[in-house]
């Protein structure tokens, strides 16, 4: 199943609706990398509220996605990780590294906006 990607101003929002196969995840990564460049996006939000499992492959793909997008000039935030998922992830030792995380979509947008402001003010 392909993940729908919505454009909202200078942000892209990918809302995962159901469990994804490894193939779907790589497709999502490629789609996002492609569109972030096409729409000149500043921030990408991946909403994982509907996921109740995050395996090591998913974590690695999201981590590399964030890295790829940073190289293309966009920040990434993963939002909506469920308490059970978060707990399982730390127990399994899975990490998202330096990727931004936020409670939900709304928080994620705030986080990205703040991040942008911060980098803008530090440039001055």
């Amino acid at each position: 199943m392909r993940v729908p990607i919505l454009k909202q101003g200078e942000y892209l929002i990918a809302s995962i609706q159901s469990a994804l196969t490894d193939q779907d995840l790589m497709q999502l990564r490629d789609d996002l990398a492609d569109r972030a460049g096409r729409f000149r996006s500043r921030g990408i939000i991946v909403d994982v509220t509907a996921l109740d499992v995050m395996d090591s492959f998913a974590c690695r793909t999201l981590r590399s996605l964030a890295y790829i997008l940073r190289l293309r000039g966009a920040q990434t935030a993963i939002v909506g990780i469920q308490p059970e998922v978060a707990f399982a992830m730390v127990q399994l030792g899975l990490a998202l590294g330096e990727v931004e995380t936020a409670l939900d979509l709304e928080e994620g947008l705030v986080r990205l906006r703040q991040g942008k402001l911060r980098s803008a003010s530090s440039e001055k």
Partner: protein
Amino acid sequence: MVLQRSAHVEKRAQDNREVSKHDATAALLRELVAHLRENRTQLREEWVRRITESKLLTAMTRDEIFAEATSVYDKYVAVLESGSVESLQAYARDLSERIIPRGVETHEVVGIVLLLRDVLARSLFKKYQSDFGLLNRVLDAYEPAANRIANTVAVSFVQERERIIRQQQEAIRELSTPVLQVRERLLILPIIGIIDPQRARQVTEQLLRGIRANRAKVVVIDITGVPSVDSTVANHLVQTVDASRLMGATVIVTGLSSEIAQTLVTIGVDLSKMKTVGDLQGGIEEAERLLGYKVMMEQNSDEPR
């Protein structure tokens, strides 16, 4: 054929003997009960005297001991009479409920029941001293019943005690992890007592649920009340912090005493990824700064209202 019949007759005779033995025991017990009823006052007083002498039940006054002794005595006699320990069981449970909070120990309860057994046995010795054979038969009837009673009381007491312990453990478990909101989007989680793996897991789960329910952005975990931190506990803390971060909350750990900090450095736990502040006040101030709150004292506040 003849042999078979004689075996049959033998068996019937044995049955008869058993029945008559049972009857004899019942008759002896009846006699015993009558004896105990007759000498109720004297035996009861003797028992209370022995209890006080052995310094048992020191948490209770003499009158209380006498009142309890009376009802235990009556129940005891009733059990000997009916052979059913059920009412005694219920009474022992009720008694335990009343005396456990007053600090009565297991050995005291077992001790007084055994004392009663001894007092009654003595009185039997005295009564039947002239007829040794009868005394033996009376004791044969009395001893199993008395032992069963002692057993029942002790077991009821211990069971009641265990029930209370279980209940309290449950209560402690529920009380032990309050997740409190002190400001909009700021939670504090004071941890008091020893953290074992089970509790650490529960703390983490409760915190993560709290983060989602209160939409928290910053969490202050205060471990002032944690007596010792070893590498296991430190690992649990790191896991909690990581999991909270995945849910978009920043965690500040406060209350690391100098001993704990030294231990952690000595055993080489890496807490560099964790934000730590000296005390809870500092932690809350730091959290307010992160959230953009500014707390200031009101002007002209030197007049107390």
